[in-house]
């Protein structure tokens, strides 16, 4: 059984935010407009968090998708089975069942979940037909481009074979010009992502909370602090 | 109580009807809640999702609701029936 995860090399990340744009394009994440953005309602499944380190005079960038935790605090508190962890490790969201109570948003330590405060999404040309549009009043978040996995599975089934490694890749990993994001099957010992996850530079955000996130970061190298 | 207000027989029967309705509400309302809790156990079993939470909580909740329903049925029917007896 696959276990989908991601490794993000912070040494390579330049903070260019191509991953953010690619994610928005791929997943029909709506632009909320300037007024709403000012109120703090930007929807950004993949978001680049930045932190100014005054001591060393650098700004750090942390691309933060949903961590797809193996012990997700968000799925515990959902009252209606609208968010759940599927057997392949992806924490999924069922837009049609979500009642918009935002408990999962309050429980997520990574602020990975977003809410449709208004009906932001509209039918428009050039949207990705593989990803459903979300109505107002429901929670949404990064899905590890789950629709691409479904497509890969369908192709593989049609050709009567297994899904090939690398056939399923997320939009953010694909688009990163510095190749900082690697995505793949953590349970496959031959995959790139599993190899990088064992790196001595590997760490997880808020590891002490016991959420077991499957987005693993590689620290910046020596000399960068 | 001192002399009751005289009422026409049809009104009396309507009042009696409503007494029976009130007497049945505990079963409908609280019974409904108990059925709902049981349904949630079944759902958690079907979806293989933290069955222990559903069973654990219903082990407390269902007896509480049964107690409330029993007390209500006892008192409502007790008073209605005792009121019909000739004193």
């Amino acid at each position, binding site marked *: 059984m696959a276990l989908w995860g991601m490794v993000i090399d912070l040494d390579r990340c330049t903070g260019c935010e191509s991953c953010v744009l690619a994610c928005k394009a791929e997943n029909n994440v709506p632009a909320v407009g300037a007024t709403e953005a000012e109120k703090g309602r930007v929807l950004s499944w993949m978001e680049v968090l930045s932190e100014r380190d005054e001591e060393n005079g650098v700004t750090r960038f942390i691309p933060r998708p949903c961590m797809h935790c193996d012990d997700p605090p968000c799925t515990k508190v959902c009252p209606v089975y609208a968010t759940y962890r599927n057997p392949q490790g992806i924490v999924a969201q069922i837009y049609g069942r979500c009642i918009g109570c935002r408990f999962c948003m309050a429980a997520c330590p990574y*602020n990975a979940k977003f809410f449709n405060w208004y009906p932001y999404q509209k039918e428009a040309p050039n949207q990705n037909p593989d990803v459903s549009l979300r109505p107002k009043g429901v929670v949404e978040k990064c899905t590890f481009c789950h629709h691409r996995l479904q497509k890969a599975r369908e192709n593989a089934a049609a050709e009567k074979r297994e899904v090939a490694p690398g056939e399923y890749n997320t939009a953010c990993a694909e688009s990163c010009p510095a190749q900082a994001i690697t995505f793949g099957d953590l349970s496959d010992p031959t995959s790139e992502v599993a190899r990088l996850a064992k790196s001595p530079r590997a760490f997880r955000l808020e590891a002490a909370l016991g959420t077991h996130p499957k987005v693993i970061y590689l620290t910046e190298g020596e000399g960068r602090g | 109580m001192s002399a009751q207000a005289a009422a026409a027989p049809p009104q009396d029967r309507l009042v009696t009807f409503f007494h029976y309705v009130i007497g049945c509400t505990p079963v409908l309302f609280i019974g409904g809640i108990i059925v709902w809790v049981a349904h949630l156990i079944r759902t958690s079993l079907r979806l293989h999702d933290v069955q222990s939470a559903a069973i654990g909580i219903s082990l407390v909740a269902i007896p509480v609701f049964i107690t409330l329903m029993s007390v209500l049925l006892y008192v409502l029917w007790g008073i209605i029936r005792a*009121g019909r*007896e000739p004193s």
Partner: protein
Amino acid sequence: MAEFVMNPADEVLLDPIRKTGAGFWFALAGLLTMVGFGAVAYLTQFVNGLGATGLHEPVSWGFYVTNFVFFIGISHAGTLISAILRLSKAEWRRPVTRMAEVITCMVLLVGGGQILIDLGRPDRLLNVIQYGRYQSPLLWDATSISAYLTASTVYLYLPMIPDIAILRDRTTKYNFLYRVLALGWRGTQKQQKILNRAITIMMVVVIPIAVSVHTVVSFVFSMTLQPMWHSTIFGPYFVVGAIFSGIGALIIAMLIFRKAYKLESYLKPIHFQYLGQLLLVMSLLWFYFTFAEYLTAYYGGEPEEMKVFFSKFTGDFRWEFWSMVGCNFIIPMACLTSLKKNPIPRVLTASIFIVIGMWLERFIIVVPTLSNPRLPFRLGSYMPTWVEWGEFTGSLGVFALFYLLFTKFFPVISIWEIHEGRHEGVEEVMHRVKSYLPDDAEHAPPPQQQPVAIAAKAVVP
């Protein structure tokens, strides 16, 4: 069986039902305006979306969740006070219990409604019924609050039955309603026994249910991993805070109706003195829990917790935080420590500040933690809009409206309990106090013979 003969003085308790003065119409108009404002606010939100509020990321819970905790908290006054006072056979409870029980039932409806208002998709509410997950504290809330609503409605209705029978026999207004609700009550011994037994069971059953309600409400916060939410003290802390705010609200309601319905001879200064003393005890308890909570956080010094801690003490939320401390501890200490003479103004002042302070306390729990996320997320301060203020106003209006309408149909002081107090209470208390004293006190010989008797006892082995 004793014939119930109503004391002519008690007729004043039936006046609000028989007569309606101008004051009622003014109050009704005012409350309907508040409710109307709330309805417009909610309709705006329902049609347009929760974007009409000031909520955003990261503060995705604000006024509505604060109000939810606040209103459910107030519901603890009634039934808890009524049940505990009945259980401890406190005779001074008699004029208080009905008003307390009504508060609980009415405010529980409003409190439960707050969560519905907070939903992004209220049209999908039935998903909770169909797909509920018991791992979620929200389902614990749903179950617990259902149990409490049922129990408190029963606990309100049962002691009302003899009063409804009084209304059935002595008024012609709404006679059909009273005949139905009185369940054929005639005050026979058998009926009395059944009712007393049921009330006794209910008063014991209702207490753990009430405690569980605000405990599971606190679990909504403490079951998450967020800084200054994930605290083991939340269960008891919330229950204490609930009883605290509830007694304050009860006192305010009692004083309003005391004035409006001329109940001065029933709600006497002594009642407010005792309630004020209870309020003082709860204030001290509240302060103890708050102190323990914040000292623990401060001493541990965990960076993410300290961010939230300092935002409350010196940062964005300092006004709300220190006002809360003033309203909940400093002012009650000042007002409630000497209540012997003229307790009513002091108790009223303390109650008003306490109700405001407890609302601030709920706000201080919900918003600062969300405003200070663990990761360097975007910053943003929560600024409630007119929609949230409107909803708050409307909720208060709905609660007060339900209460006011109740008093127009049913007596706000339990007539038969006052009657019982007059005829049986005094004697029963005398017997009870006598039973506490040593038995020889009753058979003691006159004082001058005493030394001889003692000497004689000393000789006999």
